């Protein structure tokens, strides 16, 4: 397989000119620089839609078209909030807009008062109901009561209280279906809260239930735990979870994640953490995941480019995707790490089949200068990720095949010296301790 790669790799190096023309067309398609806020927002529903829009707005600061994006995001968030019942968010957004969108998008006191008043009434009603259920000790009704409370708090943005209410239903769950419902609710709130510890916790609980889960729930749970692993920076595990997500997910989990996200998160994490074999078996040959990838052609293309060693075009796709990924509420923290890992992976993979590599062609393939590439290679060699040495004079990288025999001799001698030293020090200390012990004993006598 390596021989094949080499051929493809070489081809890529020499056909860079053609590549560029091709990528130019593609990049205009992907619309790298400006984000389509409306299209983005339409992927989501519920609270995450608002949160994501607000996140986009926060991230877009200065710059002309950035401000346009920001206002667009704020406007949509404002409209979305008006459909809901969260007066806090409303006030926040109004403050952020600060009158830039005209009088229609100001602080609507009448609306928020009405919402608050309705909330008070509803809360009272719910409390009365719950008290009634509790005196009657009907488990199912109590569960429903707490569940309603959870829904109510969630709608009003009191996430901590919502979390508590949902967790409380746990004691009153009688069937595994209830347990799963409880888990999904808790997971949803925890994701909104950013408490990913709870997420993986409750995913585990849900997966342990005795009944076989329906495929949609399975897919939801996979996504949730993938997110949790991503937040914990365990990219390999995250990639596995996203890759295992079934196509049943569809548009059923838009309050947390869109299908496109599964493709992007899973694809990037896989690129950063999988080796070639895994990439082939688990990503490219994965029929389920292919469906997701079809939704985000850029990611699909870049994975294929990576696998077929078209690094220049792969890296270009990555660069084009970057501004949008930075606006993603879950991925933004990890973009840099993932990107450096992917880049390192690419460099390592590039050098792997060769005995010697011409740095000039390699720099061309990675769209960087020879000096910059040398620095990157130096860092990778120092970390022992590439076994090679650089001939800086002729600008050639030579693979270095470690001499096992010599290395073993060296290590053996080194270990011997260390052992010698340690044992001597140990004997000395033992004698000292014996001496002190004797002194103490003689003092006692």
């Amino acid at each position, binding site marked *: 397989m390596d021989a094949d790669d080499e051929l493809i790799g070489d081809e890529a190096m020499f056909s860079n000119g053609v590549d560029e023309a091709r990528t130019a067309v593609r990049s205009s398609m992907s619309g790298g620089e400006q984000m389509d806020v409306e299209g983005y927002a339409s992927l989501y529903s519920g609270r995450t839609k608002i949160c994501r829009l607000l996140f986009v707005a926060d991230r877009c600061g200065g710059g002309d078209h950035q401000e346009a994006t920001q206002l667009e995001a704020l406007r949509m968030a404002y409209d979305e909030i008006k459909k809901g019942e969260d007066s806090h968010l409303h006030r926040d957004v109004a403050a952020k807009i600060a009158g830039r969108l005209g009088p229609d998008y100001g602080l609507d006191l009448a609306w928020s008062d009405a919402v608050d008043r309705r909330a008070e009434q509803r809360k009272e009603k719910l409390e009365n109901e719950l008290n009634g259920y509790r005196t009657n000790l009907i488990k199912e009704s109590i569960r429903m009561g707490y569940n309603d409370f959870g829904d109510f708090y969630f709608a009003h943005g009191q996430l901590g209280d919502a979390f508590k209410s949902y967790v409380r239903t746990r004691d009153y769950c009688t069937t595994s279906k209830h347990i799963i419902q409880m888990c999904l609710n808790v997971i949803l709130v925890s994701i909104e809260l950013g408490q990913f510890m709870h997420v993986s916790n409750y995913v585990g609980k849900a997966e342990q239930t005795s009944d076989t889960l329906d495929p949609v729930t399975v897919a939801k749970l996979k996504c949730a735990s993938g997110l949790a692993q991503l937040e914990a920076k365990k990219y390999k595990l995250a990639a596995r979870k996203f890759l295992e997500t079934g196509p049943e997910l569809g548009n059923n989990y838009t309050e947390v994640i869109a299908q496109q996200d599964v493709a992007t998160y899973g694809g990037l994490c896989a690129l950063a953490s999988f080796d070639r074999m895994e990439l082939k078996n688990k990503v490219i040959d994965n029929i389920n995941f292919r469906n997701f990838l079809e939704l985000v052609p850029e990611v699909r293309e870049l994975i294929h480019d990576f696998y077929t060693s078209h690094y220049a075009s792969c890296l270009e796709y990555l660069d084009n995707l970057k501004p949008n990924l930075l606006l993603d509420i879950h991925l933004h923290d990890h973009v840099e790490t993932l990107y450096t890992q992917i880049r390192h992976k690419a460099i390592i993979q590039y050098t792997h089949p060769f005995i010697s590599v011409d740095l000039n062609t390699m720099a061309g393939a990675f769209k960087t200068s020879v000096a910059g590439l040398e620095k990157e290679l130096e860092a990778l060699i*120092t970390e022992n990720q590439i076994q090679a040495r650089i001939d800086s004079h002729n600008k050639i990288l030579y693979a270095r095949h470690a001499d096992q025999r010599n290395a073993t*001799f060296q290590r053996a001698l080194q270990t011997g010296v260390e052992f*010698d030293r340690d044992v001597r020090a140990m004997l000395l*200390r033992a004698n*000292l*301790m014996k*001496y002190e012990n004797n002194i103490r004993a003689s003092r006692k006598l």
Partner: protein
Amino acid sequence: MDSMETLLSQIQAFSGSPQDVSHLHSLLKQSEDSLQSQQPSRFVPLLEQLDPSKHSLGYLYFLEAYASGPISREQASGFLLTVVNFINSCAVEQIRLAPDKFLSICKKYKDQVMQLQVPMQGVAPLRTAIRKIQSSSEHLTSLHSDFFLLCILSKCYKSAQSILDEDIFEVDQPRDLFLYGYYGGIINIGLKRFDKAIECLHNVFTSPMTSLNAIAVEAYKKYILVSLIQNGQVPSFPKYTSASAQRGLKTYTQPYIDLATSYATGKFAEIEACIQTNMDKYQSDSNLGLVKQVLSSLYKHNIQRLTQTYLTLSLQDIANTVQLNTPKEAEMHVLRMIQDGEIFATINQKDGMVSFHEDPEQYKTCEMIEHIDSSIQRLMKLSKKLSAIDEQISCDPTYANKVGRERPRYDYDDFDSVPHKFF
């Protein structure tokens, strides 16, 4: 008056067979008080009547009594001569009967040499003295540290080497070990044997101690510096380091720890700034020379790192990466390192390129096999010793007692102690 004369004749009579000598030893012990009460100057004529090689034990007692008093400047040279003569000619089996006396004479001798500021004179006699008094080469006497001190003062590092290279396992006084390790470290630094120096100093601050001492602190300072020069980093405390040392050492050696931290960044500017701010402290600890060596060792470590990554590199690039000013300086550094066998490289002056090579050692020569074999033998001997000591300690009644006591156990005493409070 008479007692001394009789003692003298007894000494002359009983210095033959071992039985006689041990009889004489008890006689001398009995008359120790009367010896101490005499005028020190009285012993000069008495000593002249004894032969140090034959009557070593008696000579030792007289000499010790003589040395216990103050010695005037005029007498000093005579005293030194007598002691040197005695050390060189005394009979080993006789002086070993009274090692304390012998040690105290040697100490007195060392003090005199120091007072007269001629430390070099004392080096050879003390080395002979150590050889004569130590029961085996593994035995650490309290003379070791004195001997090293004289070597350091007279800068005769080489003459200390033979004693220093012997492994020490038996220790009379922990304090001796501290000084032995500290001075030994300094001598090894003087001999540029940094790995040995690290070992010596390491032994000092990892020794079991209940409270921190100044020797350990100074040793740790030097340990940091030498570790940086040799390995480019300072290892953390091994877990057997006593708690008091782990707690205390860092607070007393802050300027040195700062230096190690800035060294780890690999930036010259930071290290130089650190040295500038702590200059006074390094100077007052008289470690400034070592600190300067630390600075220059950074070039070395950086160049060494380059050999791992590059096959060829121009001198200009070397100068840039290791932050030297000119290619010329880089060439000097590389040259010196090739000479010292620290890297394997060739310099091509025509185009200013350096090619780095792999270690040419193939581990095929007879010498290498012999070297490996001798190491194996040595290690086997050491591990045998270790298991012997382990056995010995496990059988030691005091040790067994201690371990038994530490194990939680419901003793009769435990129950008994409670009601006492209510009485």
